[in-house]
């Protein structure tokens, strides 16, 4: 039992259901939803099935390696199916069975939890999935991305790998998890958590972050003008990460927060519109 065997089980399960297995995206993102394999591919009308692990960074969740549950970087297992299959809930339940969980012995609940990512103009309707009270998955029918109504509707299933593994191993501390038989989560991640917490909360230069936000925003605008949508979107992801860092430095006021999120959303919406227009012209 280990995180990597959990990943392998999920890969096998979803590959067998027709998903293409993508590799993690190589930029800092807050969630698997933000990577191009999800963001762009949900916009158009073509069917799409993908599954991948995505390391996800949330600087404000850092706890210097001292909290047994919270980390500033965690691993998501992201699945997108478009259009959403009619039996997707049963498929998902089966996937838990495939991980060796005997559901007859547990309480599995789909608890109302609508999802929203304002910086990429995306929202959906769905649940957090609770297994004996533990949140293990976010299950969402996307309704909009980049401010555009999605049709057909994609379903997104995001497993929290650490949570799931804690459940499977019966551990109370994230750092006690095994990544493989010989390597623990502690070995791999502890120093990283400590150092990044220090950086995110205390040392990240607010001035440099603000400048970076601005220069990437400008770059994105330039690229949108040149119709280079994928690079433009990368710039937006960077903006979003710089925004998150500024936030963890406590440098953003409430009004500024609204403004910066609106700036990113504005760019992302333009990209989404252009992307759709391009798909619709032969």
């Amino acid at each position, binding site marked *: 039992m280990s995180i990597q065997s959990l990943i392998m089980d999920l890969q096998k399960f979803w590959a067998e259901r027709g998903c293409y297995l993508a590799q993690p995206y190589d930029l800092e993102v807050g969630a698997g939803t933000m990577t191009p394999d999800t963001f762009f591919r949900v916009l158009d009308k073509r069917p799409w099935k993908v599954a991948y692990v995505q390391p996800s960074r949330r600087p404000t969740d850092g706890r210097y390696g001292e*909290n*047994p*549950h919270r980390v500033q970087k965690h691993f998501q297992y992201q699945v997108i199916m478009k*259009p*959403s*299959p*009619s039996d997707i*809930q*049963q498929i998902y*339940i089966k996937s838990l069975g495939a991980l060796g969980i005997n*559901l*007859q*012995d*547990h*309480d*599995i*609940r*789909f*608890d*109302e939890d*609508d999802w929203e990512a304002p910086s990429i103009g995306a929202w*959906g*309707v769905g*649940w957090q999935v*609770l*297994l*004996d*009270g*533990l*949140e293990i998955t976010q299950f969402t*029918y996307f*309704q909009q991305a980049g401010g555009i109504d999605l*049709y*057909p*509707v994609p*379903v997104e299933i995001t497993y929290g790998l650490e949570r799931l593994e804690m*459940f499977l191993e019966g551990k*109370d501390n994230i750092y006690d998890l095994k990544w493989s038989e010989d390597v623990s989560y502690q070995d791999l991640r502890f120093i990283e958590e400590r150092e990044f917490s220090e950086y995110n909360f205390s040392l990240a230069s607010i001035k440099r972050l603000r400048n970076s936000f601005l220069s990437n925003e400008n770059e994105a605008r330039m690229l949108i003008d040149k119709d280079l949508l994928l690079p433009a979107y990368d710039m937006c992801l960077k903006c979003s990460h710089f925004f998150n860092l500024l936030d963890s430095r406590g440098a953003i*006021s*409430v*009004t500024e927060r609204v403004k910066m999120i609106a700036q990113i959303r504005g760019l992302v919406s333009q990209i989404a519109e252009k992307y759709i227009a391009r798909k619709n012209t032969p």
Partner: protein
Amino acid sequence: MEFILELNTEEMPPAHVKAALVQLEERFKEQLLSQNVERRQIKTYGTCRRLVVTGYFSPTQKDREEEFIGPPKAVGMKQDGSFSSAAKGFAKSQGVRVSELKVIKTAKGEYLGLKKIERGMPTRDILSEILPQIVSSLSFPKMMRWGESSFRFSRPIKNILCLFGGKKLSFSIEGIRAGNSTTGHKIYFPKKIKVRSFKEYREALKKMKVVIDQEERRKMILSQIGRKLTSLKAELHPDEGLLERLVYDIEYPYVILGSFPEEYLELPLEVLSTAMREGQKLFSIVKEKKQQPFFLGVADAYQDSKSLIRKGNERVLKARLDDAKFFWEQDRKATLRKKAKALDKIVFQEKLGSYEDKTQRLKKIVSYLADKIEATKEKKQVIQAAELSKVDLLTEMVREFPSLQGNVGGLYAREEKYPALVWKAVYEHYQPVSLDDEPPASLTGAILSIADRLDSIVGVIGTGITVTGSKDPFGLRRNAQGVCKVIIERKLCLSFMRLLDKVIAIYGERLQEPKEKIKSYCLDFFSNRLRYIFERQGYRYDLVNASVSAGIDNLYHSYLRLIALDSLKDSPSFEPLIIIAKRVNNILKDQPLFKVNQALLAEKEERELYTTFSIIKNNIIPLISKGDFSQAQRIIFRIRSSINSFFDNVLVMTDEVRMRRNRLALLQAISKLLIQVADYSQIVIEGQDSPK
């Protein structure tokens, strides 16, 4: 014949299920009525995964007699009784012989026409037609699309079961064909089974671990909880909202009793019960109001034979309590006073400044309020409470559990040994959260609650934001109702107008709107809220209007005025007084104001009226300022006979201008006195025109 409809969906939120069941019952009744299908015993049931309607409907529509009206009898029938060409034409157009036409009496006179009997269609056909309409007409607080369809519903529909007289009905909704099968519990019995009747359906589902009747599930939960509590000799920390949620959240309830380490008992009950409720939806258990190291949870299961559900929940709860304990310790490392220095960093509302600004305003408002209601003893404490009231917004605990704002600040203030009047005020100042909630128990809490809400209301309105229909982004209605509730229940007497002036003045230059406009908007707004509260309590709307439109400067007196009216509404003197008061008002309509000159009172009856009026006035003015409106009212009854004989014997609208004006002036003085007791013109009397 028996009818069953079951829509099987993915998990809907409890509020959606409840909304849908109400709508389904209404739509079925409406549609069947308009389709002439007889029905009885329409019942609805729901779980998070099912919406169920049953009932008995007649097998066919009622036969319908329809009239087709042709030409008037005078046109269609000649004097000799033979038919004219108009009648023949009509008969032809209806495909009948002219001799079949009959005389039909209508409101407009006698016409030629015919009656046809239309045979009722089979109900089965009607249902197949109206069911897709009924289902797609359901509306939910938030709707979604799924798959490749543009159909919107609460959550995806998986299966439709629909039987009429034991046979399936044929229709489909968004590609899903109705059939005669359903599925059981999503984990234990996901396979389809067929059913033929409601009894069979209900029993089969129960075997497959689904209890469709919400009331039955509620009873199951309560009885299981009861059993666990008896063994513990403890009580549930009551939480109706949570129970109501859980009833719809699950299809088969299994109550688990779990425990947590005693070290967390040092956390206050409020924090423990919130940590349990939010996220895992667990009930906390108390003995003599003290938290016990146990919880109760409701699983969607029929057993926990390996105790895995209990252990899983215990582990998750321990992690949450760990966090809460960490926050509790972390937050107390700096005192509230020290933390307060960062209040200027958090924005209350963009145009209204930071929470530091709000705190400064609150201090001034509570000090004014304390003076006005003569709370001299409490003044110092309530100012101190205002100073601390918003500091908990800066704590980790409130960041984690926003619903505990106020409570958390109060608890930390208590830990820091502030006097009870201070910490309780902080603790209670968000109360009442709704009209069904209790107002603060402490006077200091009540003052702070009024000040906080009024600051928000005046500020938001002063920035030009108005409340319309469903748009109330700052919850101003709830806030205003809170103010009214606190003032009335604590029987506080103070001038609401001057309070508004004060709050507006404290804001000073921050408010963009003109002061008078803000004030009059606020007064209107509060009058409407007051009407809403009173009508919700079941008072007659016209009595409510009579009380509220007599003025709301003293909100508590508006209430006293209303109960006086309500208690006297059936007295034999009531109606005659209103009739006479309306008569007075009618005469005075559009008249400028005049002044009474005693010397000009010529007739006996007008001198008498003046005397009666003066005596009554002297008697009731002190009663009014005391708020004794019942007594004031009873005394007012006595003016009626004098007014009557005045009207019978004295010509008000005489040609003699000075006399006329003097008589009008007398009536104006009376009217002015009456309106201090109630605005009688608002009261509706049967057989009279209702007020505009």
